[in-house]
């Protein structure tokens, strides 16, 4: 009886974190070597835009101006395509062995300057330094290194067939992994013998232009790679240019569809890597602590600015309460703040516009009746920040369960049976990725074969590798990046 009374009198024990003492700041101090102004990179040289216009790139962590970036207009895009077309003949005819050596060099030069690039990436985009340092930059170098080795082995890519380069490739990349997406796109295109005109995202152009310095240092022939910077209009000019043999786009499904419509009258080849609303499914026999780490990594990695983020948690009813309790405990110790601090887990939201999008969708979640929870945390006074957020009591029709939020917001749904989990996971027009947590091997294989997604992580999440093909089903796009399959998408097979 006494035991029972005490249980009533005292609240359930929970861990107390964070607010007992302050962490000392631990900023990364390496010099990012960012210039005050960046021109376009066309024909191996930095050139002023024809219009003479520049726009500001700011640091989203403190809203301070970082650099001025050239605004490319149609004439600049023309010049970039002309430079690429001019370089194509000798670049594609060069022995693969030699082409590969350029890519190996680029990988090495990037590794040499890895810390500098990581700091620049963090200042330009807002991601935590531990991610840009340990993931973005090394993985970008790995992509160049992996594809370098393919350049003299193209005869093995399509057995019984001949793989040849296509010509000039137009590429537009997003702001969530600026340097890494650039490497994903450039490396396979170049290894195959294509030339490239690439547009970085308007808020994150700096590391692309820093990489242009590396391309110069590597002695890459002029025109093989050209960077044109700007916003949506520049992107449309790159995608729509008649000089492109193929276009590759990573970004939202909405823009992807617009590009598909724009190119409808042509026979242009396309690779589309679009949005997602991945289900991360936790069964009652899952290793719960690991699953909680996987859930956190799945949705809070890079502030949730990840197309394959595990933004819908589907949790088995018998363990739902336990998983959510532990998840909340884990979220209480996530550190939100200065992206350059080595202890920061969630950095800055990439832009004011994206912060507004996240706020709008979160408000819709509250309005539609889901229950929002955020751990107590102090956000910096300046800059764009959003606390890690979860919604419980979410139904499939809620906007937070259907639309890509692209922020640190997790929607939690529950299920009772395997079939229900599959049904709910697949109930989306997207199909980029999915996660499964269970100790039962046969269930893993059943789930991985039934989930309509291009990448399935079992008992892990958000893993990437240059040798591993990545890309979507359904409205998450088509074509693959990485591995032999991704390389083939940059080839003409005959």
């Amino acid at each position, binding site marked *: 009886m006494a035991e029972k009374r005490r249980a009533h009198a005292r609240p359930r024990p929970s861990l107390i974190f964070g607010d007992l003492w302050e962490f000392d700041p631990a900023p990364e101090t390496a010099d990012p070597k960012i210039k005050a102004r960046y021109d376009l990179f066309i024909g191996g040289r930095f050139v002023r835009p024809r219009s003479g216009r520049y726009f500001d790139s700011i640091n989203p962590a403190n809203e301070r101006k970082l650099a001025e970036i050239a605004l490319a207009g149609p004439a600049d895009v023309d010049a970039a395509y002309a430079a690429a077309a001019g370089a194509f003949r000798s670049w594609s005819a060069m022995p693969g062995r030699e082409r590969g050596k350029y890519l190996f060099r680029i990988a090495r030069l990037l590794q040499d300057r890895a810390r500098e690039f990581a700091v620049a990436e963090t200042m330009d985009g807002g991601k935590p330094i531990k991610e840009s340092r340990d993931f973005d930059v090394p993985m970008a170098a790995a992509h160049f290194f992996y594809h370098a080795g393919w350049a003299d082995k193209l005869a093995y890519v399509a057995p019984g067939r001949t793989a040849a380069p296509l010509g000039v490739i137009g590429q537009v990349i997003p702001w969530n992994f600026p340097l890494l997406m650039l490497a994903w796109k450039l490396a396979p295109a170049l290894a195959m013998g294509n030339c490239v005109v690439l547009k970085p995202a308007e808020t994150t152009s700096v590391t692309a232009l820093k990489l242009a310095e590396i391309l110069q240092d590597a002695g890459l022939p002029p025109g093989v790679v050209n960077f044109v910077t700007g916003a949506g209009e520049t992107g449309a000019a790159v995608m729509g240019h008649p000089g492109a043999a193929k276009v590759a786009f990573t970004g939202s499904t909405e823009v992807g569809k617009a590009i598909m419509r724009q190119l409808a009258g042509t026979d242009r080849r396309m690779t589309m890597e679009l949005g997602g609303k991945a289900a991360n499914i936790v069964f009652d026999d899952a290793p719960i602590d690991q699953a909680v780490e996987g859930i956190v990594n799945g949705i809070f990695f890079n502030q949730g600015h990840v197309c394959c983020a595990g933004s819908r948690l589907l949790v088995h009813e018998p363990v739902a309460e336990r998983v959510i309790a532990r998840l909340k405990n884990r979220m209480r110790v996530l550190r939100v703040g200065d992206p350059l601090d080595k202890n920061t887990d969630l950095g800055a939201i990439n832009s004011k516009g994206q912060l507004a999008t996240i706020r709008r969708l979160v408000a819709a979640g509250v309005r539609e009746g889901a229950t929002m929870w955020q751990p107590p945390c102090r956000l910096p006074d300046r800059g764009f920040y959003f606390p890690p957020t979860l919604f419980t009591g979410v139904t499939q029709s809620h906007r937070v369960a259907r639309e890509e939020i692209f922020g640190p917001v997790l929607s939690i749904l529950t299920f009772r049976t395997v079939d229900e989990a599959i049904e709910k996971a697949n109930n989306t*027009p997207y199909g980029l990725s999915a996660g499964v947590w269970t100790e039962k091997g046969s269930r893993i294989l059943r789930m991985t074969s039934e989930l309509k997604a291009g990448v399935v992580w079992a008992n892990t999440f958000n*893993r990437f590798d240059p040798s*591993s*093909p990545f890309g979507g089903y359904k409205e998450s796009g088509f074509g693959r990046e990485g591995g032999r399959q991704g390389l083939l998408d940059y080839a003409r097979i005959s």
Partner: protein
Amino acid sequence: MSARIPVRLPVTKTPKVYIGGAFVRSESARTFKVSAADGTFFGNIPQCTRKDLRNAVEAAAKAGPAWARRSHYNRAQILYRLAEMLEARSAELVGSLVRFGAREADASRGMSVAVDRMIHYAGWADKYEHLLGSVNPVASPHFNFTVTEPMGVVGVIAPDSPPLLGILSMVAPVIASGNTVVALASEKVPYPSILLGEMLATSDLPGGVVNILTGFRRELVPTFATHAHIRAIYAAADGDDRKALRLGAAASVKRVRFVERAADWFAEAAQGLDAIRDFVELKTIWHPIGS
């Protein structure tokens, strides 16, 4: 017309389209008249509508999961069985091709190529996975592999000519990997495709895996383009049709493969892994290696 009255009036066949394993008329009851090469009346062919196309997609979607779950070996044998049916009834098929204007030699050659092509793809059904999938040497301690999966319902728009070899060469690689098909037959010479439907019905192919419509391209292309449950399009098309199909494809991020309307389907190069590759999705799976 000859005034001579035959001793016995032959019983003619009502041409019907093959949808969901059944032979049906168009829901609209519309038909168009088809004449043989010599100008004599041949029959009334169903002029299928958007609604027929939607019904066919429904049948194909229903048949899809079970067909995709069949083992590769089983699908290979079913395609081989289809080749057996074609070979056994080749005289009838050649006869129909000649009746609609093909030269005897071309018709027989086309027939041989068609049968051999079925066998070619029957053999692929349990081999393409070796070549399209992979085990990937990732740098972290994970087992990482890539497998193929069928896309679902694929819309096939066949060329006018060759009327039989064309549709067959396009349908075979698509179903070999476990997709199901809604195909639009040659508009000019639809009857051989109706015969093909009869052979499909008597092979071991489950109903709904292949559905063949007859009718007019210009009426059906817009629905092929925009139907959201059609996950991919394989079309012998050019110019405006291509544009319409691509515009429609954009609405649901549909995959598209085009061939020339005048492509040489007799060539060895008209078959192979490429057409299979374009109608599978690649799925990459990760699992940690550890205790």
